[in-house]
Structure formats: C-alpha cells, structure tokens
C-alpha cells in the first residue's frame, strides 16, 4: 500500500532537513521532505539567530569555532538576503576572568578568526548602552540571520528542482525488512490519513527528536535535551551582536535583528520534549545576567519569550556526560543493521549547510551518485514571500507600496492584506492549503506588542472573506493561535505587557467568550 516513492525521504523540516533537501536536489537526487508540523517548527524556529563568527567556541571547541568561521563567511556571500552583517563585540565587565580575556585574541588567532582589540571607551562609543564597568572589548564578525527566511528559501529552491514537501505529516512508523527500511509510514494531517513512502534511503534530520525517530526503527540514538530560552525586546537595543567575553554561559548574548533584539540564552537539561516552554525563572535569570553587559536590559520592554531544544548526542561507547558532543553527528545505521537509514543531528544553524553537505556526501556515496555538492558555490535564490517573517521588513515594504486599499491587518508589525494574500497564494502554489497557522508562521502576525489581540480577529475575517479559511471549521484555530502566542507572553507579563495581556483577555474572554 505504498502510495509515494522517492529516492530519498528526509524527515524533519528544520534548517538541516531543508538544507539537505536543497543540497540533494542540486545533485539531481529526487527527495521528499516530510515535516511533522511546519517549516522550522523545532530548534530552527526557536534559536538566537546568531551567525557565529566562531569566537564563542574558541575556548572549548576549536573544531566548531573553525566550522562556524568558514560557514559564516560563506553564507554572507551566498545567502546575503537572510543575513544582517551587524558585526559583533565581545565585552568583559569587572569581575570577569582576566586570564580568559588575556588569552582570547590568541585563541581566536589559532582558529584564524579575525579579531580586533578595542578600548572600553571605543566600545562604548560604538554601543553607548554597554555597561560602564567594561574592562575589555573586542570586535568580531558575528552577524544575525533570519532562520525562517533561510529555511523557507532552501525549501523553495529545492522545490523548484523537484523536491516534494509534505507539511503536517509526522512520521509514525517504519516497515522493516531484513536490513532495510522498506517503507515509512506518515500521518498526513491535511488528508487525515496514513500514507506510506518507499525510499531508497531515509534520513532522520529531526534534531532533538532524532532519538524518537531512530527508536521507531528499533535503533538506539541517545539524545540529551538542553532547553534554551530567549527574550525579544520591543526595540533594537544595539547595532551589533554583543557577546559576554567569558566561557559560554547563561544569558551572555544579545543579537539584534531588524527592529528588535534577542537576549539569551539558558541551557537547562530537560527530561522530555513534552513541555518546551520558557519559564518565569529563566526569564528572570536572563535579564539579571544580561543587565551586567547592557544595564538597560533591566528596564527594557520585552514582547515575547520563546524556547528551543538543542540535542546533545551521547556516543554510546563513551557513555558519560562529558562525551556529549556539541558539534554535529552523522550516524550511518548500517552499523546498527539498517543499510538505508542515516541520522544527522546536533550542530548549529550557522553550520547547517556543512551538515547538509556531509550528510549528502554520505547518502550519495550509498546511492552511487557521484554529483558534487554545489551549495558551497551556488547562491541561495531569494524569494520575496519568505521574507515576511523578518522583524521590520513588512513595515518597510508597506511604506513603499502606499496603497490605501491595502488595509493593515496587523498594525504593530504593519502586515497588510496583500502580504497575507501573497503568503496564502504561495502555499497554494506549493500544493498546500493555506491556513491561519501557516500564515502566522510566515509573517509577523501576532509577534508585535499587542500580542495578537487585533490581528488575530482581522486576519481570520480576511481569510474567511477570501475563502482561505473554511467557514465550517469554527474558531478553534483562533483559540490555538492565541494560546500559542500566550506561551511566549506568559513569562514576561509585568509592566506594560501585563496591561496588554489584560486587554487581550478582556476582549477575547470578557467580550468574545472564547474561553474553554
């Protein structure tokens, strides 16, 4: 009862899975990409958006440091539309380890990472909000990257080369025969039924879920979960990425992106992937730590918190916590008795392309395909539609277009009807059916300061009018959207955000009676 066939089935639509889809497509390999929810539903949608210069890892992981440096340089050239070349500062404040500071330029040099020493005064000139207690500062080439745009454009390019994308299609099981996966069962939520895919080779690119997927095939992959929480400020706090000059620790990076800044992160071992929300405790810790570098973070307005999970892979033979790898790991499961199954997990957004390349090399070798990797030389084509998720882009475009009939649905983030329409159209072109959730994922709807109070209602109404929402489906998508946005609001509800949340509740419960 196989109803789909392909050369390679990629499971997981994060940066790695989408990057791999494009890499294979460029080598002429036919693929299906199956994603449980929507593009970047996992860590790729819940990270810091920092395109690492590599300097962060010079003290504890020189391999990662060098990979980041090389990949960062490459992406700035080949995917400039996804990257803001902000530059970065590493700063130390009174009390920070002086030996670490003294060694830092040397450690960078060892990894060939360009670094420039600054006086605290120079650093303060560049970023006046820095703490007055600076004792050291260095300039590096960190940048910020829009992970949504990156993944969506990888998918778009792959699709244009023949890759098939299945969204809302979680893999639920494997049918094995001797040493092969004969077919993969996935549940197509849009069709409401199970489908079977037969593939010459199956890749597990599910990040933190890699252990779960491998387990479905009876293979142990030991993944530890490290949750990180991040906070978005209502305004951009600095021009450059600010890193605390110390061994990686909590809340030591502030990354600007468009009109906002993102502060984080924490690293909290969690037992399962069931509740991946940011908590009040983490938020308080992040603010206290962040304020040591940038004191106004103590009083800043935060519009949202969110969390992602890093998979830390434990290599079986070594067993203990120190053997946990922070780089990426590729498993060829022929060693576990399944010839056509590969897992790629771990790593960083910055190195997603390299991870995809290495995985694709292994796959092509197994399939007997000799085409070389092209993602290191072919630029990533830009599409307009995938850019609507970037903070500040929608307003710019809206101001430029200046069309009075193009009514704004979201006033905080200035998302007009035309943006919603073009997103819906592109989903339709890709063979999907537009939904409220899919539009929300691809735009800044609900991500501004009103927390979705108004734009939820307006976008729903607009999509109903356009026939993009089936009128019979009721209001549950609205409830879901509000509850989903709430996850990111709940830990930051004090001061102005609590006022807005109260208004949100007054409207949606007090008046609309949406509570359940």
């Amino acid at each position, binding site marked *: 009862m196989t109803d789909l066939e392909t050369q390679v089935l990629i499971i997981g639509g994060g940066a790695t899975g989408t990057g791999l889809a494009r890499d294979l497509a460029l080598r002429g390999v036919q693929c299906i990409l199956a994603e449980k929810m929507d593009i970047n539903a996992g860590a790729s949608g819940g990270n810091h958006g920092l395109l690492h210069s590599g300097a962060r890892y010079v003290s504890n992981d020189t391999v990662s440091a060098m990979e980041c440096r090389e990949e960062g340089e490459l992406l700035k050239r080949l995917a400039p539309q996804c990257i803001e070349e902000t530059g970065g500062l590493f700063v130390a404040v009174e009390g920070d380890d002086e030996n670490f500071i003294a060694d830092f330029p040397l450690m960078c040099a060892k990894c060939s990472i360009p670094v420039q020493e600054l006086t605290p005064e120079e650093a303060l000139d560049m970023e006046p909000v820095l703490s007055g207690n600076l004792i050291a500062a260095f300039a590096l080439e960190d940048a910020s990257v829009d992970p949504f745009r990156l993944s969506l454009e990888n998918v778009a390019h792959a699709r244009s080369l023949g890759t098939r994308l299945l969204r809302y299609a979680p893999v639920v099981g494997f049918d094995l025969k001797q040493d092969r996966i004969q077919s993969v069962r996935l549940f197509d939520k849009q069709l409401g039924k199970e489908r079977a895919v037969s593939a010459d080779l199956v890749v597990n690119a599910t990040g933190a879920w890699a252990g779960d997927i491998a387990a479905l095939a009876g293979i142990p992959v030991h993944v530890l979960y490290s949750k990180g929480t991040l906070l978005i400020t209502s305004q951009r706090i600095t021009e450059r990425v600010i890193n605390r000059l110390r061994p990686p620790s909590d809340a030591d990076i502030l990354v600007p992106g468009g009109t906002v800044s993102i502060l984080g992160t924490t690293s909290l071992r969690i037992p399962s992937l069931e509740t991946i929300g940011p908590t009040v405790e983490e938020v308080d810790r992040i*603010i206290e730590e962040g304020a040591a570098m940038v004191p106004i973070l103590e009083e800043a307005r935060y519009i949202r918190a969110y969390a992602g999970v890093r998979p830390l892979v434990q290599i079986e033979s070594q067993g203990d916590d120190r053997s946990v790898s922070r780089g990426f790991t590729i498993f060829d499961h022929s060693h576990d008795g399944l010839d056509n199954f590969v897992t790629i997990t771990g790593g960083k957004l910055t190195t997603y392309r390299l991870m995809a390349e290495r995985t694709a090399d292994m796959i092509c070798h197994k399939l007997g395909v000799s085409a070389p990797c092209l993602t290191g030389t072919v630029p990533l084509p830009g599409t307009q539609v995938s850019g609507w998720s970037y903070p500040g882009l929608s307003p710019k475009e809206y101001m430029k277009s200046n069309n009075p009939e193009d009514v704004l649905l979201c006033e905080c983030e200035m998302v007009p009807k035309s943006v919603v329409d073009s997103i819906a159209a592109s989903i339709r072109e890709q063979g999907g059916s537009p939904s409220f959730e899919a539009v929300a994922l691809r735009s800044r709807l609900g991500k501004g300061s009103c927390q979705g109070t108004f734009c939820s209602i307006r976008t729903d109404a607009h999509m109903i009018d356009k026939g993009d929402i089936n009128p019979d489906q009721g209001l549950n998508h609205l409830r879901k959207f509000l509850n989903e946005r709430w996850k990111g609001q709940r830990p930051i509800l004090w001061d102005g955000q609590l006022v807005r949340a109260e208004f949100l509740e007054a409207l949606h419960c007090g008046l609309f009676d949406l509570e359940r």
Partner: protein
Amino acid sequence: MSISETIKCDLAVIGTGMAGMSAALFAANRGVSVVQIGRPKGILLASGLLDLMGVHPVQENRSWNDPWAAMDALCRDLPEHPYSRLKKEDILSAFGELLPFLHNAGLPYCRRVEQNAKIITSLGTVKTTYCVPKTMWNGVLALENQPKGLIVDFFGLKDFSAGRIVATLRERWPELRAVRVFFPGNAGGKELLAGEITAQVLETSESRMKLAQEIKPHIRDARVIGMPSICGMRNPDEVLSELEKEIGIPLFEIPTIPPSVPGLRLKEAFEVGLQAIGVRQFLQEQVLTVNRGDNSELILHLDTKGRKVVVQSQGVILASGRFMGGGLYASRRGIRETLFNLPVFQPGDRKDWHRKELLDSRGHPANQAGLETDDLFRPLNEAGRPAFETLFAAGSILAHQDWMRMKCGSGLAVSTAYASVNAFSKTKEQFK
C-alpha cells in the same frame, strides 16, 4: 510650585471607568459634592454591554439565565467575592438609578430584570450579558427566535466580518446570510474604522437613505438585519429607527472591537450627564499623591500642567481599575496599588500569576489579585483594619473576582460604587 487652586468637596472619586462614573452619579444624586478625576480610557474600551453575573463556576464555564440565582451560587461557593457583601435590593436600586440616567443622557438600555440576555458578538460567538443598549436589543430577540436574517458589513471595514459571524453561528442560527455593501461616502472601499467619524455619517438622513438603498436589494426574505454598531454617536436609537423606516425591517447593532462606538457613547453620556448634575470633572488629570490633612480629610494632588490643583475631601472612592486602568501595577517582583500603596492580595510568585493557556476557563490567578476590604468596601491595611476611615474602593480593583470569566464587570463596578457611596454617606453622618 505654589498651589494655585484648592477645591474642597465631600467626596473625591478617583477613576472614570464604569465604577468611577457610577460612583460620581450616585453621590451627586444624594446631594454630596463630588470631584471626579481621571482620564477616561477604560470606559472608551468597553463594549457598551452591562454584564451583571453570567458564569459560575468558571472552571465549568457554566452560563446562567438568571443572574440572581448565579449570584446566590457564587456567594455560596466563593464567599470572598465582592458580591457577597451586597444585597439584591441594593444592586437593583443601583441599576434602577443608573439606567434612567443613561436614558436621559440619550442612551437608553434594555433588560429583563430577572434574566440575562444573550448577545451576538462580532466574532459570531454568543455572550451572556444583562443590560444591552437599546440599539442591540433586536439582536437579543432575534437570537432567541432565529428568523431569516441578514448581517451587513462594509467594504473597507477590517474589524468586522459578516461572513465570520454567519459562519460561527451556522448551527445556532442557520438562516442567516452575510452581505457586504459600500458605506455612504466610501464608494472606493477605503479603510473604514468603526469609530466616531463613521458613526456620525449616519446621523444625516441623506446617508441613511444611501445606505438603505445599498442594503435593500439584498434583503429578500430576511426579517431582521444586524450591522456593526455605528448608527450615530448621539441618539443612536433615533438614528437606528430612522434607518429601520428606510429599510422596512427591524435592525440591530452588533458590538465591535474597542475602541468602539458604544464605548464612546457611554463615555459621552456619562460626561455630559454628570456635569449637568454638578459633578466637577478633571478628565485630563491624574491624581499623583494623596496625603492626610490635619482634620482627617484627604488631600489629593493632581498633575495639572502649569498650575497646581489640590482637592481636599472628606472621603475618597478609589475606582482606579486594574492594570489597564492604572490602579494596580506589576513589576517583575510583585503587584502593588499605585496611589496609597495599599496591600494587594496576590498569588505568591510571578510564576503562579498566569496559567499555561490564555483561554483556560478557570481564569488566571492574577485576575483575582486586588484590594481586600471590610463590609463597607474600605480597603484594609497590613493589620487588616481599614487603611483610612473614609477611603472606599469600587470596581475591578477589588480582589477575589474575575469579571472577564464571570461576566460581571459592569455589574460589579456599578453595585460596588453604589455600596461605597452609601457607606461614605453613613460614615459622614457619624462624623457630624
């Protein structure tokens, strides 16, 4: 800066929301001299509906037809709720005084004394409320009988979709249709706000005729028509009945999202009506601080630009609302009351303030935060005694209630204002 004006009065009301406005009314009606201070923002954002008591227990989301029975059940189960300190007669008298006042100010309301009303919202959901503006009453009746109906909306109006309303109501009211027409003067379908300017358009008979002509071809077998609440700022009922005459069948307004016309009308009605009965209002000002004078009077310092105004009053009703209103303020470390630094009942830790889901029917523990009072609605100090002899609290700032879930917002505001004014009159007698 030197003091340039000192105003003496019996009672100062802090706040111009539903609670503050009602308190000023009840006090003025009793011959008490009243100064009222506050920027009317809360009331602007209100829906125009006056809830009394709709849902209990909230965790079951159980909606009641009889608000009084609901209140009895509530007071039995949650004796700390402010309603437990009130009698039905008093609440009835409060509404008995408020509704004629609003009627005289051009804003008649309808209700059934012993029964709640169900009203359609602009999302097509059905909400339990008590008094509704007369312009919405046909909607309450229509929802009960579900005749063939038509919901009208306008090109360019982004906050209101007839299609959404019809879709949500499909099961409950199957014979409802939606139609979109051009609003008078907006043939291009440009962005239209459901606010004051749009509402004023329908105050002229010419626009009403134009609108009727737009709508008429779509009526067909419809027996009733619903539309967004934009039928005039002043005397909306007249505007509506004129429009009904043109169209030929009953019409009703549907509440829109704030700041909405019904909220604006309520604000206007209160402002005009209260000034007419001698309430001195400071609507651009805030109270900055309050201290006690030599003769146990309370002295309020206002933030009037340029000159300094001080109000000296025997009593104060604190109706400064919650977080939105400004009566309560939350920092990362806790919730406090903003003017008197009164103790605030609150969940212990910020992590317990809110539940995991926004729409959890149990409501958020933070919603129960607020001032605790004695039976005379005097906020308590740390020692559990009235903080001041003549300081009273009314409205949403009170603890142990969740108006959003219980659907008791305006009822609570009006009736606790009433009780506070009566308590003030009583204590005032004692001082004499």
